[in-house]
């Protein structure tokens, strides 16, 4: 069992930090303090934090904040970043309008 799965581990109390109001996920406007608080509320994986706060689920799909969120969560859990599984990748990879997503067309036109 790695340290992320061992939920009995004591990670200490939530201690406020001066830069807690700094925005980390700018698409969904999630702050550093909110991410740290979520870890102390029991969200120990990137997936849990993501479901709880929507980090990395906005327009850029975590392209900007994925590494930043990972660093914050790992520091809060006192574990190396490599122990944290990155968020699941699933289609659609880029934000897409539903009317486009549903608009399945035939062949890609080529000049062949």
């Amino acid at each position, binding site marked *: 069992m790695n340290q992320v799965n061992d939920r009995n581990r004591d990670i200490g109390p939530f201690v406020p930090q001066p*830069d807690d109001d*700094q*925005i*980390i996920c*700018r698409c969904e406007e999630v702050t*550093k303090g909110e991410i740290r608080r979520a870890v102390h509320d029991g969200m120990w994986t990137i997936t849990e934090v993501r479901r709880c706060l929507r980090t990395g689920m906005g327009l850029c*799909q975590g*392209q*900007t*904040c*994925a*590494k*930043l969120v990972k660093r914050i969560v790992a520091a809060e859990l006192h574990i190396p*970043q*490599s122990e944290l599984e*990155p968020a699941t*990748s*699933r*289609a*659609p*990879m*880029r934000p*897409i*309008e539903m*009317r*486009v*997503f*549903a*608009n*399945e*067309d*035939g*062949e*890609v036109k*080529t*000049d*062949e």
Partner: protein
Amino acid sequence: MQRFDLIVVGAGPAGLSAAIEAAEKGMRVIVFDENAKPGGQLFKQIHKFFGSKEHRARVRGFVIGQQLLEEADRAGVQVVLDATVIGLYQDKEIVVKIRDEIHHLKGDAILIATGASENMVPFDGWTLPGVMGAGAAQTLMNLHGVLPGKRVLMLGTGNVGLVVSFQLLQCGCEVVALADAAPAIGGYGVHAAKVARCGVPFYLSHTIREAEGTDHVTGVTIAKVDEHFQFIPGTEKHFDVDTICVAVGLSPMSQLLKMAGCSMVDDPKRGGQVPVCDEFGATSIPGIYCAGDVSGIEEASSAMIEGRMAGEAIARYLGYIPEADCKQAEKQLERGLFQLRRGMFAPGRKGTKQETTDEGIRLSQTLLTKGYVADDEIERFPGVTHRVGVHPVIECTQNIPCNPCQDVCPKHCISIGENITSLPTVVLDSTCINCGMCVAGCSGQAIFLIDEDKGDGTAEITVPYEFLPLPSEGDTGTALGRDGQPVCGASVVRVRRSSAFDKTNLLTISVPKEYAMKARFFKRCG
């Protein structure tokens, strides 16, 4: 469902190279790219590339992009733009969005060459307009012709930070400083030296404390950090700027590979989440390949070779070429890649502290912390010699994979030898004819032609000059040292432009002879 022999995602240097290689073997290839223009980052690269002839060294990046597109066209590669691949599945099916339509396609092989995206670093005010990735600033300048700002602070001294800083200067921006939390400059010393000799200061072990402004950036405060990257109180420095560029590394955009179920690994040396793959880019799923930055951050020259190797491997995988035929081609490609991955900046040597060059010469510490080789350090490097008459002085002091200077001199005055990362040396008894090809041909702008004693108390120095307006003969001004500080008065005695120089103009300045080994740049009066 439409079927292709090979579907390539990403029309950058890696993707196009692979597509060309595969199409030339008779495969039916389609390339998708989400951008409106192909070429990936190549069309933003206005500087001359490093490497050797086979890596297209001395050619500017955007020209390499044009060459690749022409090759792809000749080979019959279909490139579809504004086409975003939004899904990749295990059985090599892709879903692509083209305008407002969704298409499903199947490839017998898939190559993912989606490249990388810029990292960010949070600080107070980092979401203000005016804070942008260095790559974004480069896109504004070089693709759209828009000035990103007037006064810029660059965070990050890797090659991206250094190259973009120089391009900002070329665009007429004022670069107030380069800062980096690391204690040493991360990119090539020759790139740093180009920026430093324009008078731009470097602040190593410094990072951004705060970006100021209410609705856009109006200033920035940097401060020194200790070895644990904690701010040292009282070391703050303020700059009035309207733009902050961030060049703190790249992350592979490997999500499609992860989605398909390829084995992934978190490798900080390769930039983050990357697929497990062999030297040809074959991932854990047969038929799914990767090449370029998505498989580990490097640069465009190695991405092109990786792409070609993947193209070869895919052709073999699908039976388009017999095993034996590709062995020789592969060997040659591997050799080219091996050459690029040697030297001080080799991927395997990332993060290691190096004291000397491969030749055993102590490295310039001033170069690593201030961006220029100090006057008392330069003499120990083999490219720096003294003789009567005009001769090249090569201020290339780190082992980087680059050797055009050796090929470009018609009189064979400069030698690097077989190993392209060796420091260039001036060949004994060679006769320099002052043609200027080495000065213009050095991608690092590190070669100067010097006549140390004209006999009238003056010396003449020929420097590479890539700024506008170009000074004219007879102009007077100030000669700047390697550190960008004024050293003496100077006058322009000759201005050379030639198509062979490929827009690197040569400025010959006259200075008092005692400054022959100090003056390295020219600033016009006024």
